[in-house]
């Protein structure tokens, strides 16, 4: 799970979390006793559907390139620098 979520855990953390989360899973297991057949799920409570706005550019809501890059020191030529994702550089 930690790998899937891209977080690193030490073996001590892993053991501790396993114990703590097992307790939580045991607790939320109580939901198994509820009959949910024929029940629609709720993912949001607003009742809103398809909220539209006029398709026009509002520059007040846009960040400049400089502002966008202001959160990191790792920039080059006005771009973010990211780790390489391809292993073979020659490809």
């Amino acid at each position, binding site marked *: 799970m930690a790998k899937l979520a891209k977080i690193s855990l030490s073996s001590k953390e892993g053991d501790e979390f396993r114990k703590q989360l097992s307790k939580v*899973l045991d607790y*939320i297991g109580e939901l198994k006793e509820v009959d949910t057949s024929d029940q629609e799920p709720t993912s949001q*409570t607003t009742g809103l559907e398809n909220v539209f706005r006029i398709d026009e550019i509002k520059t007040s809501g846009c960040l400049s390139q400089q502002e966008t890059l202001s959160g990191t020191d790792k920039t080059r030529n006005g771009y973010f620098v990211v780790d390489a994702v391809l292993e073979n550089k020659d490809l």
Partner: protein
Amino acid sequence: MNIPLTIKDTQEGLKKKKYSTVELVDAYLGNISKSDKDINSFITVSDEVAYAQAKKADRLILDYGDKAFEDYPLLGVTVAHKDLFLTKGVRTTAGSKVLESYIPPYSATVVEKLETAGCIMLGKTNCDAWAHGSSGENSDYGATKNPWNKKYVPGGSSSGSAAAIAANFSLITTGTDTCGSIRVPANYSYSYGLKPTYGAVSRYGVVAMASSLDTVGYFARTSDDVTNVFKVTKGEDGKDATCKNIKKEDWENVKSRMRIGILSDFFKDGLDKNVEKTMSDAIKIFKDEGIELVDVSLPYSKYAVSVYYIIQPAEVSSNLSRYDGIRYGASRDSFGDEAKRRIMLGTYVLSSGYYDAYYLRAMKIRSKIIEDLNKVFDKVDVIIAPVAPTAPFILGEKVDNPLKMYLTDIFAATANLSGIPALAVPFGFSKECLPLGFQLMGPRFSENTLFSLAKLFEKATNYKPKVAKL
């Protein structure tokens, strides 16, 4: 100077030139620098911004006199924002080391609306990292202490915002409530805490925790103050698509004769003695005011915490996936224990093979909880309930037992899962001089009904705002 405790008194003093806005800021910052090292309610104090805004306010008062207060309804009102609210040019950490040096290039809608209304920003308040917690102890910047007794927690996750109200460090503060994160600390700090209807207040520019549950709200010391702050900040901004305006009839439709529902199932398992007595005293006061009391039942709400601890971590694992350390912030190694736990739990309940058993099932029971509530609101206008199962608890008491900590939110979860508004009302103190109170919950967009009931209760009890002696 003696700092006034309400918006009305603060503005009266400004109108009568008893003090200037700059002198008010001096007094608040003086309190913070003298006493906050023991409370730890602020992560960042923004004195430069505060003085600039105060000077602007004083200029407006000088130029326009009393009329300035009509154009700027919160002129001279000091505010401190939970450090989840983006503030342009002022560091915003979300209580996490991941954002330790993050300076946002824009402000949250609520921050902007309060500034436009004349508020003075004093700084950013401490909170559980990413708002994950019920006690304030999960902050990467150290736990906040309860100003009423520093051995106790102030409640969380909006711990610093609540403590700042109790310690007289600010006139109002902002918070977020995903499962009691405003109401529990308000209850533990002798403050009003409003969790508005889901969709009543824009969340644009507020660090997201669980998007189908997150709401933005406030702490203040009177029902009038919390009403005025809500009026200024509610409504569509075109940036949060879940946000909609309250219909005029919903706002104005406050009945003169009301019925309050008492939740028999919330009391079934036996409440803490302090909480039980507060509830029965409060109910009696409403009864003496001629309000009809009706026993009601929400049978599926007993599952609310379990449903919450599936839906919330699921949404947390998704929302926190954006913190990749590339565009801003530090790397994912900087997440604290609680964030890691929730990311793991959320990833688990969403993973294929477990999705139906956990996430889908939780969403279906969420529907049942909402159906229960709809039935109850056919019979009553408002429900009264405890905010938390106990009075404030001692620092450290629950930190090693996440499940026990999660159960602090047992009375809070129903309002978030169903999107209804809830108002925490301060009422009385325990034998240990710790604050107590209760919450009022109403149907969606019934905020004004909650405010009017709170006001009635204030009058009936001759309520006076109080702050802790430090």
